[in-house]
């Protein structure tokens, strides 16, 4: 089932700025979905539309199969904004209890969940302190705690680690991996590509309000080529391969032939077949997310 679904979703702000153009997207239950794009690509606009903070100029958005205008869809949702703005007059514990009560949790459950999350996010010591006295990092962690207060089925995170130090970032990643293991759906916007790469099942790349690419990392880097591993090569084969663009590395009893494109890969395999060389294995060459991201962005810039 699609937990998030958008159909030709578009948004034009007053003044004529087109922030999003006909976005068609599906995020399935249990997947961690990375939503990438440079500044001004339309990521935050998409999140605002999904949370019904702004109205679409065209198309529609659905959460759990229901229109986003239905407040009940947010019962199973957790949201962490990029810049966490919390009610500064509460203590950390009281704030979590307040949000939990908005979600309809019983008073006893509110206190229990608040206590658990404060402990888990390392805020137990500061639980009774006023939020106005919290540091940026503490606010971000408290923000994450409020997003998890109802143990949501869907978590929408907008730049979740932007204000965190490396240790807290690792803790956040662990939390995401834990959520993934528990079958929760996570929709995460981030500029930190390595972070997205390490946790996301699928990614979408957005630029100037348009969806450029979407798929798993394997799908997005599939056309890159491969590395062919063979045994010791006779001189005739080495000579034949040197006439191609393939890069040959001879190492002991094993040789590797790196092909940078699908067409080159097919050509080299043909050469090897013709010369009767036994192929041990073919390893698809994966592009890193960074390469995929910049590939999509640069292609647009060139165009």
């Amino acid at each position: 089932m699609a937990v998030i679904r958008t159909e030709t979703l578009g948004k034009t702000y007053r003044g004529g700025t087109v922030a999003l153009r006909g976005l068609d997207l599906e995020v399935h239950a249990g997947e961690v979905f990375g939503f990438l794009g440079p500044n001004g690509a339309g990521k935050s606009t998409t999140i605002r539309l999904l949370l019904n903070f702004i109205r679409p100029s065209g198309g529609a958005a659905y959460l759990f199969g229901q229109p986003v205008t239905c407040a009940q869809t947010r019962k199973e949702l957790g949201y962490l904004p990029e810049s966490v703005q919390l009610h500064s007059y509460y203590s950390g514990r009281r704030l979590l209890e307040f949000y939990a009560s908005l979600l309809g949790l019983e008073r006893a459950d509110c206190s229990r969940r608040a206590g658990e999350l404060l402990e888990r996010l390392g805020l137990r010591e500061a639980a009774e302190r006023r939020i106005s006295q919290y540091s940026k990092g503490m606010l971000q962690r408290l923000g994450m705690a409020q997003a998890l207060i109802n143990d949501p089925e869907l978590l929408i995170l907008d730049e979740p680690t932007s204000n965190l130090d490396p240790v807290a970032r690792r803790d956040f990643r662990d939390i995401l991996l834990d959520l993934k293991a528990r079958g929760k759906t996570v929709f995460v916007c981030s500029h930190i590509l390595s972070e997205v790469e390490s946790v996301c099942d699928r990614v979408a790349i957005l630029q100037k309000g348009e969806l450029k690419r979407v798929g798993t990392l394997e799908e997005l880097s599939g056309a890159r080529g491969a590395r062919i591993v063979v045994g010791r090569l006779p001189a005739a084969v080495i000579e034949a391969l040197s006439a191609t663009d393939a890069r040959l590395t001879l190492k002991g009893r094993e040789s590797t032939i790196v092909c940078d494109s699908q067409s080159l890969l097919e050509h080299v395999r043909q050469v090897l077949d013709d010369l009767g060389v036994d192929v041990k294995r073919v390893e698809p060459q994966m592009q890193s997310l960074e390469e995929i991201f910049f590939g999509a962005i640069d292609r647009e810039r060139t165009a």
Partner: protein
Amino acid sequence: MNPTLLVAVDSIRALLHRRLLVALMLALLGLTAVFSVTVTKVKKSILEASELAAGISDGELTEAEQEQARQGIDQAGSFFLAGFYWFSAFGGTVVALFICCTAVASDLRRGTIHMILAKPVTRSQFLIGKYCGAIAVLFGYSLLAGIALVIFTQVNDLELNLAAQYAPWLMFCQSLMVGSVAMLLSLLLHPLLAAVVAFFASAGFFSSPNPLFFVLPSYDQFNVFGLIMNGRLIALEDILTLTIYAFDVAAIFLLLALWRFRSRDLI
């Protein structure tokens, strides 16, 4: 607990943590107290200095002259009472404008509105909660002003006439209306501009007959300044009618505010 009630309670908490608002309310009540003390002193000095006062106590004046003098003193008392009422009612209007014009705007500016609306809280529940919170604070202000009025009359040995007795309630009813108008306008205009427009958007500011009487609320009947000054009574039926009118106007403007709030982008 109902989300509307939770938002209302949170709104009260937020308002009481706003130093500017608390300072404004305390300043208004403080100024009223200063006014009260000043008036008491002035009144005493007038009476002491006046031969008329001496005449009343020594019996040097005729009965008719004594009656006339007593009436004059009573009138002065009513004037002071009315002045006291006007001061606190004006303060109530300023506080209502301040609270209701910034109720949604401050949450939008801080971004806390998004944290609440990301929960299963509808926009209507949010806005009604905000309004209820504001009204609760205004009720508290009217109550304090009422208590101050009683203390003022006791200190000055004045009679708390029927118009003055109901004055705090009417002040609160007026706050209901002013607040709802301010809230609607704050969703259309800058909060400061909304406050100015809401203050003047009263049918009372325009001469009758005027078509605006049918679309704008009238605060005139809630201003019992004249009644208090003249020592005239106000009927309970009138209070009831005015209360219904205030709730009616507040409901209409709140519905308009809801309609606007549901369709606007919250950024």
